[in-house]
């Protein structure tokens, strides 16, 4: 079912159709895996995390609202949280989590279906826009996105004034935001 929309996939997941889970994997698996590899720097760990991620998708399937979609946004958001949690947990020997957004009915994930369908296209557009950012903008956004660092932590890591870091981040995010908005309007 390569052309199925997220909403259709959600309905099939809720009907416990294993092919739907594989279709979701085929749609988002590589992106999630790439994200896990980038954050954990370990392919074996990344594969385990992908497996755990899709176990969560399978477990939470009944809670998704097919009319609202947002499956891709949920998967990619949870993937990042899982990877950063994994890294922090490995460093601290116990679980320290980012703000939890795992609930599928969290208002963050209440999109119109057509928006959820374009999660992959939007990721491609953001990737292209990111490649055009300055080196400083890339560095601060990578630290925030891949390592979960706050602005003050980034300023400390880079030994740069907090105001400069905020400025790089603000301008970088603004460019990505504009691209993401244009993508949503397709």
């Amino acid at each position: 079912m390569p052309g199925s929309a997220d909403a259709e996939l959600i309905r099939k997941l809720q009907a416990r159709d294993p092919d739907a889970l594989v279709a979701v994997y085929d749609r988002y698996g590589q992106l999630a895996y790439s994200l896990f590899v980038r954050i954990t720097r370990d392919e074996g760990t990344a594969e385990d995390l992908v497996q755990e991620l899709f176990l969560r998708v399978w477990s939470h399937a009944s809670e998704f609202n097919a009319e609202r979609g947002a499956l891709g946004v949920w998967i990619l958001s949870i993937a990042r949280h899982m990877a950063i949690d994994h890294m922090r947990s490995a460093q601290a020997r116990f679980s320290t989590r980012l703000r939890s957004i795992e609930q599928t009915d969290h208002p963050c994930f209440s999109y119109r279906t057509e928006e959820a369908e374009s999660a992959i296209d939007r990721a491609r557009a953001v990737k292209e826009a990111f490649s055009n950012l300055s080196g400083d903008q890339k560095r601060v956004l990578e630290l925030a996105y891949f390592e979960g660092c706050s602005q003050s932590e980034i300023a400390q890591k880079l030994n740069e004034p907090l105001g400069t870091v905020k400025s790089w981040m603000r301008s970088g995010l603004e460019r990505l935001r504009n691209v993401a908005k244009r993508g949503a309007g397709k």
Partner: protein
Amino acid sequence: MTHPEMNELYELYALGTLEPELAAEIERHLADQCEYCWGRLQEATVLAAAMAGIAEPKTPSKSLRQRVLAIGGGTQRSRGWLFAVVGLSAACAVLLAFSIWSGGQVHALEDRMNGLTRERNELRSALEILSRSDTRTVQFGRADTPHGRVFVNRNRGLVFVGSQLPALATDRTYELWLVPTSGAPRPAGLFQPNARGDSVNVSPVPVNPAEIAAVAVSVEPRQGSSAPTTKPFLVVPLG
């Protein structure tokens, strides 16, 4: 703080990287059902998810797809401890066929098959705990030391998954303990890691998170102990 002032903060909030005092400001608006803030947060969440595209594309192994297929009950074989259930089922069938062929060894093989069946049932219990949405996951350890995860479900029990556990003397075993917020640790099962130091142990005892503060592992005599006789070498806080 006004909305224009907050406008550039939603993405950081969605990424979970906003400074706590600023995050609290946004949360006050969200708690008041501020429509503007909810709308911006949704946009920010979409962007945060799309930023996954920044990661350099990597191609997972083909076996990963099979592991995912197995989650949904697909028929292809996969590697990984979670799917040992499938492998063990196949092993049971092979052992059954072999025991018919070799009548003289029937009893020994039956014993072994019973052991495998028990192990398969235990892994099925693990799968049951892992697949429930109310199961919590707590990780422990670093990659180069004993490490793993504890999956805790209030009603179904817990699954302890450990890696790189040190080998034990033949007269010793690892024992898992539930450490209550007050009172003595309660035994939660014995286990022996395999040659690589990996172990999956299922304890089908309800775990009330209000009462249990941590899971611990100690080295005990082979038959196990009713109270730890050595200092636990692993303590995993559940809070």
